[in-house]
């Protein structure tokens, strides 16, 4: 987070991209877009574009990672070299490794891992265009892909960030706000219980701002949840 900036990111309660402080960017979710994966999802969130694919449950490799009493979720978040302005070196850097790790743990809370001892459920998240908020986009897409794959789950987990720009707490930071803003708080929750499965924060928030940011991000997650259910509804019909 850049912290103090002279840039005017909010003018008269309107953000650079025309949104109000509590407004999400436009989100489009399509379930079941890939042939080979057991479940998949394509998600556009503002200009972010993410594919997620799920394989499994299947035998866990490497074997020493197997758990005798449950399955593990092996999530992998990667950004394509062409997804950002400068070419990004392909593969897992430290940032992607951390995101993959905390996403795996978040999914293990909702996937019924105890039904598949020794197995692995692979969740691949590929960011093809990045404009801030890609970890939330990837986790949301992966949740839909898990449901599309028919993996038994207690719930899907929507993820959405809130943050602070020009001393205003806002929902869903865009690129400029991410670069020049004061705080970023990505959050993933279980909608049915409102439990927190993923939370990160960097930047500067007063205790009151933190409370407000939690409220905003939670409501963002609930809005997304609706869109995720609609995506499944569109693919499978009925009332998902």
């Amino acid at each position, binding site marked *: 987070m850049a912290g103090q900036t002279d840039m005017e990111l909010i003018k008269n309660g309107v953000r650079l991209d025309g949104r109000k402080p509590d407004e999400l960017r436009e989100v489009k979710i399509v379930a079941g877009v890939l042939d080979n994966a057991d479940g998949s999802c394509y998600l556009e969130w503002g200009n972010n574009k993410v594919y997620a694919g799920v394989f499994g449950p299947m035998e866990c490799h490497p074997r020493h990672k197997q758990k005798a009493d449950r399955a593990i979720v092996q999530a992998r978040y990667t950004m394509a070299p062409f997804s950002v302005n400068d070419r990004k070196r392909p593969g897992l850097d430290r940032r992607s490794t951390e995101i993959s*790790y905390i996403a795996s743990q978040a999914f293990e*809370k909702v996937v019924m891992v105890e039904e598949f001892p020794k197995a692995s459920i692979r969740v691949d998240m590929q960011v093809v265009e990045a404009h801030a908020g890609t970890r939330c986009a990837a986790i949301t897409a992966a949740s839909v892909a898990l449901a599309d794959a028919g993996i038994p789950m207690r719930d899907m987990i929507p993820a959405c960030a809130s943050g602070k720009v020009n001393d205003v707490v806002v929902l869903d930071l865009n690129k400029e706000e991410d670069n020049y803003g004061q705080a970023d708080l990505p959050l993933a929750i279980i909608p049915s219980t409102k439990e927190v499965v993923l939370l990160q*924060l960097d930047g*500067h928030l007063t205790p009151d701002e933190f*409370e407000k940011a*939690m409220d905003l991000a939670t409501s963002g997650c609930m809005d997304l949840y609706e869109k995720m259910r609609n995506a499944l509804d569109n693919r499978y019909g009925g009332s998902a």
Partner: protein
Amino acid sequence: MSNDHVSNLMKGHMETLAAEGKRADGRGINEYREVKIETGMLNTAEGSAMVHLGKTKILCGIKMLIGTPYGDSPKSGTMTTSTELAPLADQSFDPGPPREQSIELSRVVDRGIRESRMIDFEALCIEEGEKVWMVYIDLHILDNNGNLFDACTLAAASALSNAKIPNVQHSVADKDVDLPVTCWPISCTFGKLGNTVILDPTSDEEGVMTARFTVAHDENGNLRAAQKGMNGAFTDAEIREAVKTARTSDNVLREALKGIQ
């Protein structure tokens, strides 16, 4: 960092205790273990500190080198944090390149220090766009008895506080000066044991708990960084309560940090 080998008997015992507001080592649920900080024990490092948090023992060394700044911030010095989960610290630590656990640990510690602006990065500029100081924070875990997150943040802050910029060695100026430090971030880590949230978990408690939450505050009580970890969950209320608890409980660590200033 969790210990896989806690027996079910111990697990039940600790969960029952926690529900009654007690801990296996006699502490209250929002109580830190004894903290001890020593500084300046290494001559080759620009700054150094050893932190004892109960039986957890961390050695931190600061090295500073001259390098080129990033293109998007030509006037700022840089900072790199790494942690070494050396096999000598815990039976469950393997040798080899850094794993997910150690990467997560380094990045959470890094965010606490970086986002609080503890280091004045602009003061680390030697020649705009050409030469800046690069600060390397290397954390060596010598003994793991839980809560590496708080111990590492404390060790990094302590070591930075007594670091000197090696001007003479690198022919930048004729005197070494103190690394400019602007504020003091402190991180507080909580664990979820059964349905109870406890502060400063030991490795036994880490082996039983299902979720972890770390939050870093500056000395004005504002939040600077946070991270939820492990495959369990916290309720919304638990998170908000933990943030409040952190603001009062981090006093113990702040006092210890003040002792070395």
